[in-house]
């Protein structure tokens, strides 16, 4: 073809000087004298975009004047309309001309109408309000006695028509199905197809007429009806099985050359029609042996008849192969189809090769041996200069990935990923790599490294499921706790290494993942230690003096990355992964030493899965010649299927040039596990694929297991810490923490004894009993330095009594009083908040007061945009027995900042035969998401300097509070601020807004005035906390 148009000019402006371009017909002549011609020539002569803009603006204003002038004739209007279209094509807004397009279609003679309709179809879309004005015109034209007019109306209807106006034209179009002219019948069928697409219900009653169209004596009408059938069969294949015979007959006639030669395309009979029929047969025969059997003959004939004379026969063959692999399999046909794919794959024409790969990708799961047959071609395509070929090859490899070839395939995918800049490709590929890594990762190190690559490249664009799945995996872990630890340790170590590299920027999402995994920010330790060893003075309360000096420090560099800070320290529970390498305990050389020992220890840990399925030796050999046993096996298969190809392959093997050898090696590592014996497993890939990184199925079990183990870690790190860092308040802290625990356990025990009671009275006596067991720690006189343990313990002990039916793990946290939120004669719903370290846990206790069983009780919380609400599993059996209480737990995480918001929901239950619904709501405040931030004095100093948002305020204290410790006490108790240090008349406190926005408070007492100074990375948080502090201090 190109030879026909090759004459096309290369130098456009030169030709304008001539009178006639390229020998076009009369139409071309006319355009030169027209205004459009002038415009086009003007535009072409311009060199800058700016000039073009100017010219078009002129043109548009002159058009505006012309179309609104009363003297403008319809003929002139038609001319204007063409220029409107041209301006819009250049990307300029000509919307003021739309109404005139409608008018032109309405009022013009046939020629003008034609342009009017064209402009409407180009300018408007289906729900454009102007389109309604066209309906009457269409109705009128459909009723015209003029064939051309009818055809124009039908053409516009099948392109663009308001759905709600279909009834106005439907009867007219139905009539046209009986029209004497085939062109009208054909266009009517296509208009009905359009209606079927946008409003299937409106054309349901004419299905019988579609059948008549299918049997129309005109091929064009019949072919048009196939569009409708393809769509209807796609939606409901079983409803049209009776037509299989008809479709087969039609295809036989087409293939047999029984159609008028008009329908031939390069002497191939009606290729579009053939493809349409092949698709229909594929849909009808899917999973249906009987129907498929009807099609075998004609498919065989189609394959045979498609002589490879023209590209279009490849298009038919491709469709044929697709159909053969879609329907109930017949080995003879499959064999032929496989050979056909071979012709594509081995073709020197790049388009055919691409389709060959596409076909392979489609059939590979059914027939993995095909990949073996073409392995050398696939290897070649992997390094093809055209990225499209490469990408299709990767798609193919993705389908054949297994535990043995994953490393090679993912490596190839990563290579491609690093080369591409297209966002869509990155998102797609990153998703695939993450999926494969999770399924088949050979070991921890590989998994973490691969995921690091995924996050580095795709962090900004990837599907949010990827990081959340990854983090869940780290958090929930596997059956073996030591494995979990190793995986987490490896992850943290790898992040430390990554962050060590200077001048590298990581995507926000990756940094979030890192911070989440290592919530203690241990990757900052190195810096802190370095700073200290270089003689940087540790934090002093008079931070103002240091400000200048320290602001030059690197610590500021971390701020723009938006690192999330969360509470650190050795409790480790703040980090769901349970790994905390870290150390807010810095400040002197002894502690720096401790950290080093810590990290050294971890490096010594062996990081292998040691699980069944992972064979470290085998993995290291991948790509070695010793790994080639699959090859002989493959050769046998190849001989069976296609001897010629085998010989060729063997010849290649014999050549053994260095390059060839490399390819062979690559092949052996790529196609390992694809031999005959693995065929079965590949076929059932979806079912049998063993997820290496499978999450535990029983969530509850995981949870409790994890909790225990974390506690263990906690304890062990505590003991080691207290041995080494035997420094006053740390030791105290440790002991206090233990004290806390004891108290909790104690009160829990007492609760168990008293578990029936739901009394709201704080069990003060119990508290005092508990306190007695560790009197020295909770003596009020011991408060010179610290108050927290006492108050924490007090509040826990006070409220723990209410948690009669809580799961054990929840009792570790502070919680609010139980408040009844709604009730009726049967049930009472009460609620309380548990301020867990990483979220707010809402508990709704449903007490069945009646003597009957409540069936299918559901408690649901309405979603809100500010929170992410997750139901905690394992605590909501649908039946509530008589006179008992059931708890529903929801974890609430803040999504958007807010100050106060109601959380509403309902309880629904069945009793006897009635369904009852009770609604309730509870108020949440930002305070519910404030948690203590346990950092060291030094870290406080560093952070203080890095925060830009601050607020200062003096608050008058009552006399009873005059001493700083007693002034801080309520802040700690009521606002959950963590008291880091009290030095003289100054106090340092820190808290964080979940998930991880830190806020620091410095206070100083002057007589009866408390000077509060807040700083945070968040601009609004200091104001909010100041207000809350004022309330607390003035209120007490």
């Amino acid at each position, binding site marked *: *073809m190109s030879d*026909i*148009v090759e*004459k*096309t*000019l290369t130098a*456009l402006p030169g030709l304008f000087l001539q009178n006639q*371009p*390229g020998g076009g017909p009369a*139409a*071309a002549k006319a*355009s030169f004298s027209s205004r459009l*011609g002038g415009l*086009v020539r003007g535009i072409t002569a311009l060199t800058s975009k700016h000039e073009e803009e100017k010219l078009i603006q002129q043109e548009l204003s002159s058009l505006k004047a012309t179309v609104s002038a009363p003297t403008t004739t319809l003929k002139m209007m038609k001319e204007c309309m063409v220029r409107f*279209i*041209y301006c819009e*094509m*250049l*990307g300029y807004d000509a*919307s003021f001309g739309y109404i005139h397009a409608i008018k032109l279609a309405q009022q013009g*003679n046939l*020629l003008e109408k034609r342009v009017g309709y064209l402009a409407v*179809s180009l300018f408007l*879309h289906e*729900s*454009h309000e102007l389109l309604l004005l066209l309906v009457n015109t269409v109705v009128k034209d459909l009723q015209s*006695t*003029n*064939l*051309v007019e009818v055809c124009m109306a039908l*053409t516009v209807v*099948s392109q663009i028509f308001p759905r709600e106006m279909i009834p106005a034209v439907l009867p007219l179009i139905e009539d046209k199905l009986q029209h004497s002219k085939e*062109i009208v019948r*054909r*266009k009517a069928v296509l208009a009905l197809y*359009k209606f079927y*697409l946008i409003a299937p219900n409106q054309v349901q009653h004419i299905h019988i007429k579609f059948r008549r169209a299918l049997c129309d004596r005109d091929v*064009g009408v019949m*072919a*048009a009806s196939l*569009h409708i059938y393809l769509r209807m069969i796609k939606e409901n294949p079983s409803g049209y099985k009776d037509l299989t015979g008809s479709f087969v007959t039609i295809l036989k006639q087409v293939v047999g050359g029984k159609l008028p030669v*008009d329908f031939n395309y390069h002497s191939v009979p*009606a*290729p*579009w*029609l053939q493809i349409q029929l092949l698709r229909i047969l594929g849909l009808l025969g899917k999973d249906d042996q009987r129907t498929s059997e009807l099609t075998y003959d004609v498919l065989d004939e189609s394959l045979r008849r498609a002589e490879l004379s023209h590209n*279009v026969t*490849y*298009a038919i063959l*491709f*469709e044929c192969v697709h159909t053969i692999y879609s329907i109930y399999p017949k080995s003879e046909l499959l064999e032929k189809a496989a050979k056909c794919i071979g012709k594509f794959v081995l073709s020197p024409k*790049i*388009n055919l090769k*691409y*389709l060959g790969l596409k076909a392979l990708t489609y059939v590979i799961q059914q027939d993995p041996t095909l990949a073996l047959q073409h392995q050398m071609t696939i290897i070649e395509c992997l390094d093809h200069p*055209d990225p*499209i070929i490469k*990408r299709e090859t990767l798609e193919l490899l993705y389908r054949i990935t297994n535990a043995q070839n994953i490393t090679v395939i993912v490596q190839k995918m990563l290579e491609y990923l690093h080369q591409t800049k297209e966002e*869509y*490709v990155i998102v797609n590929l990153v998703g695939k790599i993450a999926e494969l890594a999770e399924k088949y990762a050979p070991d921890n190190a590989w998994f973490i490294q691969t995921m690091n690559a995924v996050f580095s490249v795709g962090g900004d664009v990837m599907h949010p499921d990827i990081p959340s799945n990854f983090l869940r995996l780290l958090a929930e872990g596997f059956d073996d706790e030591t494995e979990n630890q190793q995986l987490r340790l490896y992850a943290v170590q790898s992040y430390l290494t990554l962050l060590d590299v200077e001048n590298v920027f990581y995507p926000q999402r990756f940094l979030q993942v890192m911070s989440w995994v290592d919530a203690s920010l241990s990757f900052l330790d190195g810096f802190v230690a370095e700073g200290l060893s270089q003689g940087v003075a540790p934090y002093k309360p008079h931070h103002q003096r240091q400000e200048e000096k320290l602001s030059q420090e690197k610590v500021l560099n971390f701020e723009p990355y938006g690192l999330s800070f969360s509470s650190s320290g050795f409790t480790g529970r703040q980090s769901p992964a349970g790994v905390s390498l870290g150390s807010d305990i810095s400040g002197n050389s002894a502690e720096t030493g401790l950290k080093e020992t810590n990290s050294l220890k971890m490096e010594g840990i062996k990081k292998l899965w040691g699980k069944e399925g992972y064979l470290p030796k085998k993995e290291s050999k991948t790509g070695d010649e010793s790994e080639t046993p699959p090859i002989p096996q493959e050769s046998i298969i190849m001989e069976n299927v296609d001897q010629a190809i085998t010989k060729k392959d063997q010849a290649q093997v014999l050549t053994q040039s260095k390059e060839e050898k490399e390819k062979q090696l690559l092949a052996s590592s790529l196609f390992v596990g694809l031999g005959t014996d693995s065929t079965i497993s590949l076929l059932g890939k979806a079912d049998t694929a063993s997820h290496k990184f499978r999450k535990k199925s029983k969530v509850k079990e995981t949870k409790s297991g994890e909790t225990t183990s974390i506690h263990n870690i906690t304890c062990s790190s505590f003991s080691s810490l207290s041995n080494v860092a035997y420094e006053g308040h740390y030791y105290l802290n440790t002991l206090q923490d233990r004290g806390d625990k004891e108290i909790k356990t104690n009160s829990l025990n007492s609760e168990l004894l008293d578990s029936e009671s739901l009394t709201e009275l704080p069990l003060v006596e119990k508290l005092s009993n508990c306190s007695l067991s560790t009197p020295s720690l909770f003596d009020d006189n011991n408060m010179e330095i610290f108050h927290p343990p006492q108050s924490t313990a007090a509040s826990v002990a006070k409220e723990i009594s209410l948690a009669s039916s809580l799961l054990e793990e929840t009792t570790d946290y502070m919680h609010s009083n139980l408040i009844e939120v709604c009730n009726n004669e049967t049930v009472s719903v009460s609620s309380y908040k548990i301020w867990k370290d990483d979220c707010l846990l809402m508990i709704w206790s449903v007490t069945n007061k009646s003597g009957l069983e409540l069936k299918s009780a559901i408690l649901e919380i309405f979603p809100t945009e500010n929170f992410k609400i997750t139901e905690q599993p394992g605590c909501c059996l649908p039946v509530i027995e008589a006179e008992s209480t059931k708890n529903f737990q929801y974890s609430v995480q803040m999504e958007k900042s807010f100050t106060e918001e109601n959380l509403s929901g309902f309880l629904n239950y069945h009793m006897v035969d009635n369904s009852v619904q009770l609604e309730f709501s509870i108020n949440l405040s930002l305070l519910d998401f404030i948690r203590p931030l346990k950092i060291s004095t030094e870290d406080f100093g560093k952070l203080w300097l890095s925060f830009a948002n601050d607020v200062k305020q003096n608050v008058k204290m009552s006399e009873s509070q005059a001493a700083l410790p007693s002034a801080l006490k309520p802040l700690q108790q009521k606002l959950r601020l963590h008291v880091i240090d009290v030095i003289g008349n100054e106090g340092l406190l820190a808290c964080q807004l979940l998930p991880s926005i830190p806020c620091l408070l410095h206070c100083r007492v002057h007589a009866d005035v408390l000077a509060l100074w807040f700083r945070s990375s968040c601009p609004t948080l200091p104001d909010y906390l100041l207000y809350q502090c004022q309330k607390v201090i003035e209120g007490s």
Partner: protein
Amino acid sequence: RAGRGGASAERAGRERKDKKMRFMLLFSRQGKLRLQKWYLATSDKERKKMVRELMQVVLARKPKMCSFLEWRDLKVVYKRYASLYFCCAIEGQDNELITLELIHRYVELLDKYFGSVCELDIIFNFEKAYFILDEFLMGGDVQDTSKKSVLKAIEQADLLQEEDESPRSVLEEMGLA
């Protein structure tokens, strides 16, 4: 046209599933758009963005490369005829080769109609190119594979043009003839 979408989103979703062809573009080697036909409602802004991006991608392709492209969630089939690129966006599942033939058939129709078509014919008579396209593809689907009947329909309407000034009754007779 900015308010496009919204209520029609659901419908568009249904249609999208079945629309084999999303749009067809003709543009020159210099990156000038010569013809655009959208078979699925797309906002002006999005159209411009897509056209600009796609032209860039296609023009950067080397001559011996594959005629198919994966672009966004679409498959793009393109072919260059002299100075003009013909470019169709189809669904990934669709048959790329037959789309390439569809482009070719369209070029054949243009060629037959204009008599050795060149880019200038399309620049100055783009409305004719649209008429032919609309007669060949209806809503993105092949309407008629017979070259003869497509051109017959176009010529029938064109005849009216020659008789532009003729009275209406004569035209009607011709239409019926």
